[in-house]
């Protein structure tokens, strides 16, 4: 693969920055959403993918309450349209990086549901080998470079992945998911500045679901129209109704293509809503009303697509069959996860270091703490 000079800018950043002064198509998270810019994106396949995410999230909550899933478990129910759209806009060689609310993105990117569920169960065949759990899903083969658990920590990394793509002469782009709460971190500022300064092919997808834990966007951000903050870096920014499949798909495709062909980074703020609490341990009602949740549920992205498909001539039975298939997939994933063995304890340190490292650590053995010899040094530490 020909390597390219990543220091050479390919586009006139400043000339293109004006577009970020255009108003976004929808109002703030609390305001009334405008009509989607592009309807007609509803297909049975997309519908089924959205349902699969909803079903897996619902099942995850059940399994968590049955103590088969532990740790933190952040559900994305309500956010399926933008999730499916973003994943579909990615080409197979593009890269995806997300935060910790990532089950949906993993599924939409094509990570097998069994591998996701096995990871949530902490089992051997999990997509992170039972080391990552809910927050740290990944699939390197599919270009999914991880769910990350520190708010905004994945942003500088996404910038670096984009730098890597450019250095390797690859024509691909990075999509970096983050929450509305992440935009107030220093890492946001640093990553966006570098991405704009170095003309890197990365799209920062801000999933504005209204809240960072219990803090609304308005209570956290001095500029609550988050897309506008791209202008501080002369970067293109825009807002889309993230519950509108067609508009989301259009925006993601356009911005990713721009990133690929012109090396122009962008911020896309997708306005959506999270139905469940911040994590399954949060009832989600201390900071918002039941009414608000109910009102937002009326705009449910899955129901919208369903309605569109029905209006387009599909029969209820066809959609019900898709629902059934999704449920069956999740059921099978659970059965798989349950049957999958736990990771081998003697391989506790497996993967931590690169092959060959065991030799480097061998001389550390004499004064090692109790049991370290057995569990760490013998346990696949880079051997």
């Amino acid at each position, binding site marked *: 693969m020909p390597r390219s000079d990543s220091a050479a800018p390919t586009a006139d950043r400043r000339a293109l920055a004006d577009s970020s002064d255009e108003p976004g198509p929808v109002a703030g998270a609390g305001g009334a959403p405008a009509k989607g810019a592009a309807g007609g994106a509803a297909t049975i396949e997309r519908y089924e993918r959205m349902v699969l995410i909803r079903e897996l999230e619902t099942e995850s909550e059940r399994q968590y309450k049955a103590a088969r899933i532990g740790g933190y478990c952040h559900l994305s129910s309500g956010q399926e349209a933008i999730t499916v759209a973003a994943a579909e806009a990615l080409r197979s060689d593009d890269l995806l990086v997300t935060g910790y609310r990532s089950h949906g993105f993993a599924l939409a990117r094509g990570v097998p549901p069994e591998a996701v569920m096995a990871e949530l169960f902490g089992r051997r065949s999990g997509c992170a080998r039972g080391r*990552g759990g809910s927050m740290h899903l990944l699939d390197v083969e599919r270009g999914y470079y991880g769910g990350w658990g520190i708010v905004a920590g994945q942003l500088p*990394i996404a910038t670096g992945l984009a730098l890597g793509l450019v250095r390797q002469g690859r024509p691909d782009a990075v999509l970096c998911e983050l929450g509305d709460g992440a935009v107030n971190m220093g890492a946001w500022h640093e990553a966006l500045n570098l991405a704009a300064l170095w003309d890197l092919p990365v799209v920062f997808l801000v999933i504005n679901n209204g809240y960072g834990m219990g803090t609304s966007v308005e209570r956290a951000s001095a500029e609550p129209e988050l897309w506008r903050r791209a202008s501080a870096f002369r970067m293109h920014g825009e807002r889309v109704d993230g519950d509108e499949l067609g508009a989301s798909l259009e925006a993601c495709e356009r911005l990713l293509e721009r990133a690929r062909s012109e090396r122009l980074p962008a911020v896309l703020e997708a306005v959506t809503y999270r139905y469940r609490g911040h994590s399954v341990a949060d009832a989600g009602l201390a900071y918002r009303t039941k009414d608000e949740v109910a009102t937002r549920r009326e705009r449910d992205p899955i129901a919208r697509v369903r309605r569109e498909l029905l209006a387009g001539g599909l029969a209820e039975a066809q959609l019900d069959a898709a629902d059934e298939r999704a449920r069956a997939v999740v059921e099978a994933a659970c059965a798989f996860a349950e049957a999958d063995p736990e990771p081998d304890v003697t391989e506790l340190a497996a993967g931590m270091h690169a092959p060959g490292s065991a030799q480097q650590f061998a001389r550390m053995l004499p004064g090692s703490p109790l049991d370290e010899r057995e569990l760490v040094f013998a346990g696949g530490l880079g051997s």
Partner: protein
Amino acid sequence: MTMLADAPAGRTPIETASMTYREALRMALREELAADERVFIMGEEVGVFDGAYKVTAGLLAEFGADRVRDTPISEEGFVGAGVGAAMLGERPVVEIMTLNFLLVAMDQVVNHAAKIGAMFGGQLRCPLVIRTPNGAGNQLTAQHSQSFDQYFAHVPGMKVVAPASATDAKGLLKSAIRDDDPVLVLENLRLYTEKGDVPLDPSHTTPIGLAHVAREGSDLTIVSHSYATVRARQVAERLSAEHGVEVEVVDLRSLRPLDVETVAASVSKTGRALCVEEGWATYGVGAELAARIQHACFDDLDAPVERLGMAEVPLPYAKNLETAALPNAGRIERAVLRMLGLAR
């Protein structure tokens, strides 16, 4: 150009040249940049300015702005960018102007770079090098005179090396760049001008995880790394001349992995261990060593393991206060003599 004096018998002597620690580092960077197109340098003032401490001087002109990339003052941003590029198989060598500024990128080092191997089940690697000078002694005061090496050596998933000589500066930096894991290379401001005989063969490296005996002795072992090793050797020479005491100096070279074998072999021989470090001793490298030594050498110890580090204050400005606070030669000498019952 000279020949390495102690080249093992029966082997052709290694061709070396006398140069400073700084020049040795630059030579390592140049060789690795030339050998591997995945290698690139990134950091504040590494290019146009020739490096805040001139380690990267001339490399921009030789390799261009793509390989020697100036960054804004944005440590969290560009350390993270290094992590991302490394995950994709690039080999970024990130320079942090001094160790003090790595604190603002701590999250990227500890919570991201170090986690990638294990947290993702060994499916991703992070061949990132962070190189940065630390150390005190130039009246740089509290915020710019620190050696918190142990913060990083504490973290599973990291590798941390700290060369104390020009030879190892080149050898360890090269090993770090070729390693497939994140490696922190701790340089030292006062060492930059120290000269040594540096092997010229581009394939010569110093292995990670291997300490070495920097001076042989029989009465007591000083275990040290980085600039403390220079201090220890000076004190050892003086003690030999003035008191007939022979101190063995073990230079750790790597902090993680830690070569306990070499340390234990030496302490078992001498029966006494003094751990000297530039940083604060409480919860420090010496604390770790003391625990390991008492375990590995319990039956051979003739005295408790002792530690000596920087006085536990933020380093003051006044020259006399600064000197008093550092693990200076006088303090090391006193400690050795006391441990041997030759002073109180």
